[in-house]
């Protein structure tokens, strides 16, 4: 209220000031409108769809209430997808963080050739998940990949056929995803390590702390914000995991590697179950919100205090 009166007073006094005041709003308006329609508008549209009986095309004449959600949670494929998501995201996040941190610590030892090593570890991130998926699919295929090569160079008993085994296939996807992302996590940690104040470390050294203790008690606890950022980035990648699965197994063997994103795509477009597909999309969005909202709250809300 007070702002408005002040602006009005300023406008009356000086048209130039009015323009200066409005310009940022005018410049931002198109992107704001685009985001409003294409992101939030369509989230709302999907939410509405999830309560409708839409099959082939959006259909707003039949309403089924929560029925799509009930059918969703009674569907064995959705349960498989949720279990896979749990296995995949926990392993993916934990293993990526551990490997990323370890690589960053090793690279941070002021070693020679860091400039060469860093891009080598980072390079997988430059590939799309589709490329990673196809490469790993071939590499892990027992008929042409690792197993075949090992057996043909003489290790006859070598066997590694997880990708063909319904119980183990989801772990091959973890392997490929970790390969792709751990370099990126390393870069995040490396930046964090470079930001640690040398004075603290020197003080600890003077107090007689061993290198192990310094890392364990001082440096790694200081990495807390990096852990948090890495967690948020990796968690939403895990929930969205679609392209990697499509390229590597396309949900197989059987339905063993279905993920929620794959479920959404297959139900909406392959099975003409748009209502159920929309319901699964809404559940996925709620899962992402469950991660992002506390993060934003702690990041933005925390600083104000």
């Amino acid at each position, binding site marked *: 209220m007070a702002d408005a009166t002040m602006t009005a007073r300023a406008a009356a006094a000086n048209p130039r000031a009015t323009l200066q005041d409005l310009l940022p709003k005018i410049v931002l308006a198109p992107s704001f409108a685009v985001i409003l329609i294409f992101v939030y508008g369509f989230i709302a549209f999907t939410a509405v769809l999830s309560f409708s009986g839409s099959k082939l095309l959006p259909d707003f004449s039949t309403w089924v209430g929560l029925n799509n959600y009930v059918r969703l949670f009674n569907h*064995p494929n959705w349960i498989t997808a949720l279990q896979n998501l749990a296995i995949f995201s926990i392993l993916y996040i934990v293993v990526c963080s551990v490997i990323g941190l370890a690589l960053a610590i090793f690279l941070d030892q002021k070693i020679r050739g860091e400039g060469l090593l860093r891009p080598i570890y980072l390079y997988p991130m430059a590939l799309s998940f589709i490329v990673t998926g196809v490469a790993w*699919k071939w590499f892990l295929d027992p008929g042409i990949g690792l197993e075949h090569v090992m057996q043909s160079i003489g290790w006859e008993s070598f066997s590694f056929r997880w990708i*063909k085994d319904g119980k183990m296939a989801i772990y091959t996807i973890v392997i490929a995803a970790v390969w792709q992302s751990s370099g990126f996590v390393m870069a995040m940690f490396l930046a964090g390590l470079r930001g640690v104040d040398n004075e603290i470390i020197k003080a600890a050294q003077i107090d007689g702390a061993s290198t192990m203790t310094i890392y364990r008690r001082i440096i790694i606890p200081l990495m807390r914000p990096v852990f948090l950022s890495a967690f948020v980035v990796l968690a939403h990648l895990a929930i969205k995991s679609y392209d990697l699965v499509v390229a590597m197994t*396309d949900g197989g063997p059987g339905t063993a590697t279905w993920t929620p994103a794959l479920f959404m795509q297959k139900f909406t477009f392959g099975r*003409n179950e748009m209502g159920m597909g929309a319901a699964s999309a809404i559940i996925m969005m709620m899962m992402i919100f469950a991660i992002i909202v506390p993060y934003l709250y702690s990041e933005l809300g925390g600083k104000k205090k």
Partner: protein
Amino acid sequence: MLRKLLIGTMLGSALTVGYTASTYAAGGSVEVLHWWTSGGEAAALDVLKKKLESQGITWKDMPVAGGGGEAAMTALRARVTAGDPPTAVQALGFDITDWAKQGVVGDLGDVANKEGWDKVIPTALQNFAKHDGKWIAAPVNVHSTNWVWISKKALDAAGGKVPENWDELIAVLDKMKANGITPLAHGGQAWQDATIFDAVVLSLGTDFYKAAFIDNDPKALGGDKMVEAFDRMAKLKSYVDKDFSGRDWNLASAMVIEGKAGMQMMGDWAKGEFLKAKQKPGTDFVCIRFPGTQGAVTFNSDMFMMFKVGDDKKAGQLTMASDIESPDFQSSFNVVKGSVPARTDVPDTAFDDCGKKGIKDLAEANSSGKLFGSMAHGYAVPAAVKNAMYDVITRHFNGELDSKAAAKALAEAVAAAKG
């Protein structure tokens, strides 16, 4: 997904403006959405394109490759939502019915009645090509799915006798195994598992097939006979190699062609792979109906579904429909494609032995009432039910369920998908 829809919508309306300008100048044009992009298929479609162009109709190609038409159907959603559907769209089975229910399809009555399609196109196909008594799609071909493709060399080594029932099939497979080759070439993808399952269920009786897949009778779906069908699937699985999972069907065909495997159970599109490898039916490979299903046919038919279009495009659409059903096109197209004509009065002279057998079997099954839509290929049940069945079949085939549990799960999955 929704973003795509809106972009499609905007793109679609932008295109409309372009069309109206160009179509009047060209006189007549058809825009065709299809997924026939691989070598042999594209060559087959070219026959139709040339024929239309000779009649002064411009062909606007809109190929959307991949996923057995799934990608094409996604593109179609955008166009229809934008109110600007293509003239003709390649479509399968219940997808056609689903679109017809949306009230967006055209009417081919003018051509169909004049040319007497009712008499020459098998009734089982008419169930899909007609909706509410109106012709809405022009069937291009009939593929049948209950075929077995056997390497002649492997068969000779296994006694040389073509198996005629289940026990003989198992005997041949056992001998092939003893001879040191993979008896059954198979690709572990849900639709391929389901293709074999089609034939296995059909081999347990045409009434059983109809009760389970066409009528979705819960007693048939979850009954003892279905347990037996799943047992047969498990038995067949014991003859595939270790690396079957995820393999494409044409690679499985290649295994038979190269002599690494004994046989493949696949629809007649597999024949194209054998012919491309310069193999001859009868001398290099043998085509038989799945043992125990001779006389019955499970079909899968490619159709061009016609959409409601403006009057300026109507003439082109009807000409295209008429061309598709002309006997000479049916013959020349299907010789190239490997399928058989969608009308029963086309002479079989241009076809090879397997094609001739296919034409004869189709006519016979049609007149005896043993021509059924293939479950695996969307001609027995709608997409939602079909995929629910796929899930169970493929989980069982991959050892996640035993036969009893699979039959129970099948009945439950179908009930859930219908709900």
